[in-house]
């Protein structure tokens, strides 16, 4: 029989809530919690059933059992499997016994009080084994079948012989020597007898030693007849017959039993009584097996008991972990959390010292006030979620300060659960993961139902069970997490997280360095910000991420119009090819709708061959730009439409204030979206050649820089090179406010914007259409995550120039860019990169996991794993096997030393005992350690150090002392000596 416990019901409710929360919010952390709870329930179910059902038992029914009289039934439990059975509770209506663990090599005898309800053959039907193992979610019960034994009739006290029963006494008066009161005779003293028997008076009279003898009167024979009738009377008769038999035999009378089913002749003594009782027991209905059954109260959870001591520490630990998780809540003010931490520590301290701070009335008043505060002030101002968090934290706080009994420890754990739950619903931070692992481990301990038991299973068995269960839990959780159906709609969460955005809310940390217009000198300020802008992963032809040589150039927006130190776009209406027809731009933008779901094919695409993919995770930005790596043919992004303008800049329909994740496909050759339009070139010439004032000045400089070159491309190259070789790069404020004219004629120093602008203007002066491009250039390759980490200070500006017949070409005149990260040491950098990679994995694979990615994974999965994967699998298998082997070795050799010694100082004595026992020196249970030591040393003087160990053991065990370091050393030394001697003996 399997029954869900209260805790189990709580678990089901928790599973429901987490699923509800997950389905409505799309937060994968709640899915994780749900998966863990489900896997715990599943494991509890199957392991619990197995735990009880695999148990084999045999029993020893006592020789003498009387009806309705309690007796001790001996049960031997054993298990054949390698997996042990744990935390078994054996119960009868009269008694309950717990067994902590039954292993394959370790069968357990246990004794339990039982009562037989019937005379004769009884089958005990109410011996039940039950267990809440492993997690207390289910209680599995099993009635032990087939315990059969004979019960004698009920025996009651007989006073006198006034029974209705027919019994005949042969009143043959016979006197006998013995221990009586009446005088019997006098006889001579026989030498050798006890001298005290001599009657001295008579001896003195006669002169011969004489002994007085006394008589024992015996009514020696009784016949008891039981006539058997099939009604209730007969049972009473049998009971009376049994009682009488016992009475007579106890008084030394010979008894004969006559029944319908045969007689038992005269006899005396307990053996005779036994045979009479057996006969009586098997009379009539006694030969049939009848079930002996008590009504068992079903509601009691026999196996559900906790040890307060452990609960206490687990609660404290859970409280601390939950406290740590509060830091993940960005809405909670930090000062509040710090104050709370102090309170928590105080609470634990006071509890440890058993000081109660608040009395009941005071805490109730405070609670009432706080509730009012929550309802009328907190809730309207901060919203329901935060108000709830505050409320739960307040309850937590009150409990911490006041918890004293077992029930409040349970409450505390419940509150811990709730807080953790709230936290789970409000964060997607990577740091949540370790907190989750710790919390689950602590809850695991709690669920493991530690009980107060004197006898504990060996540590190895426990660790084995725990490791196994943990492993299964992890596996099932992962499986449930993967296959849980997801709703597609609440994907906002996923998109935000997919961008590697640390927080759930659109608060800070978004980068704002990009605008529709760019002023000269503006980039100087952006570049001082080291905040993350985006992560870019480049895939090769097979879809594996790889590192392209050199740096990566992320193209943002391009500008065509420069005037008064400011770049902007002029509204240009244009025509473009889309889906085979010509379309005109709307509000100077061309629009494309998604082809398949979220796939976009841009005009200008020649063929899909030779396309490589690049994935972007963009941090929240107050701009609708879709960043590319130069050219773009197709894109996959979770929006309905994309737009582009005449400068080949691509836009989302709305600003990406919550971050964005998308993929673009680009080819090897640069192309413009509307290059197929015949009028494109003339349009380019009309839009990309506008100049600021002083045309001649720029022309002069341009010709000077490109002197001797004829082709436009050569001229452009020459100008680029001239800037690179002869100008200086600086982010200094001093050069942030100069004009372009000053830059070219005077300082020749500035930031990238000046260089790009200058080159652009010079090219235009020469009649080459050109535009300024704003974007990022990064070499922040992260080798762990295989992506480029693009930061705000990677912002950059460069130039694209148009050459008739070729298209747009990129030039970067900026000579040198400084690095801000150089200060960090390599180790720190590497750790930072590693964490960064972990974070992106966490977001990509866990937080961002949804139907879409699942499909991706499974479509990409082929039955024949690739060679690389195969190698990987083999490698991991070997690693795990090696790890297991090492564990096993540790287990065999030093386990005890490592684990039992710190927990119990006197462990060394057990160790030495077991060692000696293996070599044939067994300590008898009745021997005191000192006696044992004396015996061993008297036989083998080489073990003299045993007496030292014994003395230390006495001091630890019975005097409650602790050994100082020197003494511990000498203990270790003595241990080693003995071990060595033992080995030598063996050799």
């Amino acid at each position, binding site marked *: 029989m399997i029954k869900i416990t209260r805790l189990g019901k709580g678990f089901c409710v928790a599973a429901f809530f987490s699923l509800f929360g997950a389905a409505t919010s799309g937060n994968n952390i709640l899915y994780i919690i749900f998966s863990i709870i489900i896997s715990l329930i599943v494991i509890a179910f199957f392991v619990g059933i197995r735990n009880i059902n695999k148990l084999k038992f045999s029993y020893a029914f006592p020789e003498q059992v009387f009806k309705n009289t309690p007796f001790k039934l001996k049960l031997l439990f054993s298990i054949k499997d390698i997996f042990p059975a744990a935390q078994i509770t054996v119960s009868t209506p009269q008694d309950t016994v717990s067994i902590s663990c039954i292993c394959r090599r370790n069968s357990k005898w246990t004794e339990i009080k039982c009562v037989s309800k019937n005379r004769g053959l009884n089958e005990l039907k109410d011996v039940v084994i039950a267990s809440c193992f492993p997690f207390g979610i289910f209680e599995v019960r099993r009635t032990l079948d087939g315990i059969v034994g004979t019960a004698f009739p009920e025996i009651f006290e007989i006073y006198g012989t006034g029974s209705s029963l027919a019994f005949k006494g042969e009143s043959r008066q016979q006197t006998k020597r013995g221990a009586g009161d009446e005088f019997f005779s006098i006889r001579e003293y026989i030498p050798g007898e*006890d001298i*005290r028997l001599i009657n001295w008076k008579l001896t003195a009279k006669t002169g011969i030693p004489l002994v007085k003898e006394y008589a024992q009167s015996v009514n020696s024979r009784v016949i008891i007849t039981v006539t058997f009738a099939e009604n209730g009377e007969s049972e009473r008769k049998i009971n009376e017959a049994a009682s009488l038999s016992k009475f007579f035999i106890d008084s030394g009378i010979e008894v004969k039993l006559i029944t319908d089913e045969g007689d038992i002749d005269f006899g005396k003594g307990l053996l005779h009584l036994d045979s009479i009782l057996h006969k009586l027991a098997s009379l009539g209905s006694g030969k049939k097996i009848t079930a002996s059954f008590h009504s068992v109260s079903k509601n009691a959870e026999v196996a559900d008991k906790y040890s307060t001591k452990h609960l206490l520490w687990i609660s404290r630990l859970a409280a601390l972990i939950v406290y740590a998780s509060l830091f993940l809540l960005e809405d909670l003010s930090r000062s509040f959390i710090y104050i709370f931490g102090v309170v928590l520590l105080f609470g634990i301290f006071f509890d440890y010292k058993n000081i109660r701070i608040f009395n009941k009335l005071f805490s109730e008043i405070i609670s009432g006030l706080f509730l009012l505060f929550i309802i009328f002030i907190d809730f309207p101002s901060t919203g329901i979620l935060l108000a709830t968090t505050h409320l739960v934290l307040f309850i937590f706080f009150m409990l911490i300060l006041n918890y004293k009994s077992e029930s409040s420890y349970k409450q505390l754990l419940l509150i811990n659960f709730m807080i953790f739950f709230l936290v789970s619903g409000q964060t997607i931070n990577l740091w949540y993961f370790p907190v989750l692992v710790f919390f689950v481990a602590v809850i695991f301990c709690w669920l493991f139902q530690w009980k107060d038991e004197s006898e504990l299973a060996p540590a190895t068995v426990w660790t084995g069970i725990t490791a196994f269960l943990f492993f299964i839990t992890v596996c099932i959780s992962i499986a449930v997490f993967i296959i849980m159906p997801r709703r597609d709609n609440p994907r906002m969460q996923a998109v935000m997280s997919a961008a590697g955005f640390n927080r759930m809310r659109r608060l800070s940390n978004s980068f704002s360095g990009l605008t529709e217009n760019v002023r000269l000198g503006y980039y100087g300020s952006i570049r001082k910000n080291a905040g993350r802008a985006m992560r870019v992963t480049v895939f090769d032809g097979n879809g594996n991420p790889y590192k392209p040589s050199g740096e990566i150039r992320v193209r943002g927006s391009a500008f065509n119009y420069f005037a008064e130190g400011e770049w902007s776009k002029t509204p240009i209406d244009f025509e473009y090819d889309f889906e085979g027809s010509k379309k005109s731009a709307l509000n100077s933008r061309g629009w494309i709708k998604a082809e398949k779901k979220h796939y976009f094919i841009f005009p200008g695409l020649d063929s899909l061959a030779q396309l490589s993919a690049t994935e972007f995770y963009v941090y929240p930005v107050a701009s609708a730009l879709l960043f590319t790596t130069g050219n773009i043919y197709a894109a996959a992004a979770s929006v309905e439409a994309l737009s582009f303008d005449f400068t080949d800049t691509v836009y989302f329909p709305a600003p990406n204030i919550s971050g964005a994740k998308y993929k673009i496909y680009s080819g090897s050759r640069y192309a413009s979206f509307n290059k197929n339009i015949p009028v494109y070139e003339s349009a380019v010439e009309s839009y990309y050649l506008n100049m600021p004032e002083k045309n001649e000045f720029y022309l002069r400089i341009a010709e000077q820089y490109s002197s001797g070159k004829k082709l436009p491309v050569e001229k452009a190259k020459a100008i680029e090179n001239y800037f690179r070789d002869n100008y200086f790069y600086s982010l200094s404020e001093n050069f942030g406010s100069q004009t372009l004219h000053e830059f070219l004629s005077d300082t020749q120093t500035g930031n990238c914007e000046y260089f790009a602008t200058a080159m652009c203007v010079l090219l235009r002066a020469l009649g080459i259409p050109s535009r300024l491009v704003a974007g990022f250039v990064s070499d922040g390759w992260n080798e762990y995550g295989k992506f480029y980490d693009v930061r705000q200070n990677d912002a950059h500006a460069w130039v694209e120039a148009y050459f008739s017949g070729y298209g747009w070409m990129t030039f970067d005149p900026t000579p040198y860019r400084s690095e801000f990260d150089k200060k960090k040491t390599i180790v720190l950098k590497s750790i930072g990169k590693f964490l960064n990679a972990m974070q992106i994995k966490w977001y990509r694979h866990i937080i961002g996991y949804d139907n879409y990615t699942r499909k991706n994974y499974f479509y990409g999965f082929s039955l024949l794993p690739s060679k690389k994967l195969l190698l990987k699998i083999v490698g991991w298998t070997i690693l795990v096997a090696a790890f297991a082997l090492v564990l096993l070795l540790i287990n065999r050799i030093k386990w005890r030393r490592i684990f039992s010694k710190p927990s119990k100082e006197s462990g060394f*004595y057990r160790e030495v005992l077991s060692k000696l026992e293996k070599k044939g020196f067994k300590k008898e249970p009745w021997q005191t*350690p000192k006696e044992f030591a004396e015996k061993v040393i008297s036989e083998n003087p080489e073990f003299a150090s045993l007496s030292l160990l014994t003395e230390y053991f006495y001091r630890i065990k*019975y005097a*409650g002392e602790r050994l100082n370091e020197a003494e511990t050393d000498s203990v270790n030394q003595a241990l080693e000596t003995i071990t060595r001697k033992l080995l030598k003996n063996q050799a």
Partner: protein
Amino acid sequence: MRDEQINKIKLLSDTISRVFIGKSEIVRLVIATLIGKGHLLIEDVPGIGKTLLGIALAKSIDASFKRIQFTNDLLPSDILGSSIFKSSDSSFEFRRGPIFSNIVLADEINRTTPKTQSALLEAMNDGRVTIDGNTLPLPELFMVIATQNPVEYHGTYPLPEAQLDRFFLRLKIGYPLPEHEKKIIHEKDLYDRAHKIDSVLSTKEVEELQKTVPEIRIDESLVDYILKIVNATRNSKSVKLGVSPRGTLLLVRAAQAYAVTFGRDYVVPDDIKAVVVPVLSHRIVIDSNLYGFSRINESDGIINELVKKVPVPV
């Protein structure tokens, strides 16, 4: 316990052992009785050194010592004292009997009549004596060492169970080992030497030691061990009447006192094993149908057997 006390205890047992040769175990038990505030019943054959032990103990703790030879015509007043008419001022003067000393050796206590026995035993129990309506306190440090001869039973009045219970320990001294006996022969005039022993402890110091006994730490597991032993006597088939709760309490105290004799301030299982037979053997009633008359050997054997069945907590 203070170091100085530990040293004193050691000195005391050494001093006694110097005249009472080869029985250091017995000496320890006697000291344990002394600091456990108990009385001692020695059941053994004559000539084994019972009196010598008493003298040595009394002398080494600077206590007054009296010996009373019990005979069947001994009267209570011979022990307690009596009022004697003083003709000079025609008044009664109370003359104290031998019981008004620190250590009283009651030799062959079963030789005298129950009346006299009970007078002594009452005094032992109450720590005071009432004569002619006057109640007189006995000394603070008061210990009776009674002896019995287990062989001669003719004309004796065996102590009933209830009175045996008054004694903290019942000891058997036993014959000395040959090498010890040889030493006894060579050491001349042991009695003289016993009389000349210089005291190593004052009665006050003994009283202080007595106060430390209840403070001795006894681990919970050892309390359980004691309870198991006691329960074994109650459930054993060969024992008619098991040990009473008073017996349990005295066993604990005896173990504590015995630990003190080693200068330890905690009890170890060996202490319990050492005192269990002397404390319990006279507190059980064995089934006489099974075990005849001879009692001390039998009950000792039963206790020993029972103890062997109880596992020592480790």
